């Protein structure tokens, strides 16, 4: 959907995908006074890459922004709904799994509603969806997108429970690609920051968006730091680019080359 982003990610063309077994973390880091840098377009881009390549995808949304993403994708010329209709894309509303609202006439309403969401419930639901799409599309490895992990912290999950769930999920999708999206504040003491650090160590690709240190700018919305761990050689590939979110597309610049500067 955003060819320039693929280039920055080191993918040769729109049909090139990250290697199987890759775990990708997308982190939106909020730095005051710059507002949240809207890095969710990266997960949408990765999702469309896999859908175009005919890989089955599971989109596990905890912020219930699937409709929003569908509208954005449509604006950018990508019909997400058609993939959902064909069964290649399976959307799971995380809130109904992780924090179910009791149905009318339930036997014990107080117990079912007050119980904290259990990682097992989330994993069970994801595993079920994965097995369904694996049966339907047996020849291609699946891609699972989970957003936004920090919502689970707000729901009362312990940060280490979250780590355990992520590790189990990674084992479950070891042949495919796993994309985690999370938001974090700059405060290094918060649980969100610990989650961000965990993702940094855990993921093979760590993509972090943040506002510019110098403050808000009319020509640049934020900065994307790309850190890709080399598999066979030591070290990591590190790249940085700036971006501007527009009505129907996103413009990417190498640092210092935006229209506001040139």
């Amino acid at each position, binding site marked *: 959907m955003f060819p320039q982003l693929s280039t920055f990610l080191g993918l040769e063309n729109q049909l090139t995908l990250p290697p199987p077994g890759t775990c990708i973390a997308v982190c939106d880091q909020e730095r005051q006074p710059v507002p949240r840098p809207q890095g969710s377009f990266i997960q949408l881009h990765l999702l469309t890459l896999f859908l175009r390549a005919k890989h089955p995808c599971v989109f596990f949304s905890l912020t219930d922004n699937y409709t929003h993403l569908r509208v954005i994708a449509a604006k950018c010329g990508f019909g997400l709904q058609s993939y959902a209709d064909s069964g290649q894309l399976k959307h799971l509303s995380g809130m109904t799994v992780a924090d179910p609202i009791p149905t009318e006439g339930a036997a014990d309403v107080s117990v079912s509603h007050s119980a904290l969401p259990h990682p097992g419930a989330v994993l069970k639901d994801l595993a079920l969806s994965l097995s369904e799409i694996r049966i339907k599309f047996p020849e291609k490895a699946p891609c699972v997108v989970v957003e936004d992990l920090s919502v689970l912290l707000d729901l009362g999950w312990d940060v280490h429970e979250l*780590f355990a769930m992520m590790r189990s999920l990674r084992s479950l999708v*070891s042949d495919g690609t796993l994309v985690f999206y999370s938001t974090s504040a700059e405060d290094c003491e918060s649980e969100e920051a610990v989650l961000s650090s965990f993702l940094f*160590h*855990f993921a093979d690709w760590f993509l972090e968006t943040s506002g510019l240190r110098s403050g808000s700018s009319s020509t640049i919305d934020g900065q994307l730091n790309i850190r890709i761990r080399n598999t066979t050689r*030591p*070290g990591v590939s590190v790249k940085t680019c700036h971006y501007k979110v527009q009505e129907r597309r996103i413009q990417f610049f190498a640092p210092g080359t935006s229209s506001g500067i040139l």
Partner: protein
Amino acid sequence: MANNSTAKQIFETSKTPDTVLFLDKRPHSALDLLTLFILRRYASDPTRTAVHILSNEGRTPFWKERLRQRLPDRVFVYDVATESYATEALLEQVRKMGSSTTDFRHVVICDSTGVFVERSADSFCTFLARLPGQIADASGGTAPTSIGLLHHSDVNDIRAERALKFVCTSSVTVVESSQNKVGQQDFICSVEHLRHEEGHTSQMERITVNDDWNAVYSPAESIKQSRPYISSTDSSSDPASNLSFNLRLTSEERTARDQVALPHVRGGSVIYYEPDEADDIDYEEPEE
């Protein structure tokens, strides 16, 4: 200096059983050093070394891909879910692998991240302490076992780190990492022998890793040591260099100052005080 390198002892020359703790913190990663540890230990005796990886972060494909070409045989990767970590069942699995490789040297790689959700630091440390014994029993009791343990300081509790340091013989903490001009990976590390036959040693070292996973070890100073705020040789940053009076003494002036006899000091450094009539001394107070 190379012979005095603690890092070189850890990565290249250790012949005795040991447990090495690799510590890292964002934005640095010790994963490459852990890989170096495996490959250098393997290179010391490739025909009689077995590598066991207890993969706890779902990294099984990563380890297989990374080690596939360099360690074609005798790499055992266990995909360890948190629930089964540090249990008798896992010990038994490792023991079975040990029994199939009699008289081998064993390198076991563990990852502590997330272990402390299900296991206490004590039980994990007990597991680490028992691991070499289990393998030695299974393989005839002659094979030394080395353990490399990865621990992310910024994700886990400081108490867990302290507990792990009790069971480890050495630790390597990544302080800085960068790519040098020729594309090699440079790590500035604090390298410590925690429980070693030479006693406790600690030094800052630079470990340079090339694309073939060979390493060069050299001493490195910490940033604070290498860039002092006020340099003794840099007169431009010395606040005492432009004063209208002199704060420094020449050797003659220092000798002359030392020879001055102070009135209340008799022959040594004890000060004698002679009270006069106006003094009201409390003889029951020992401080007086």
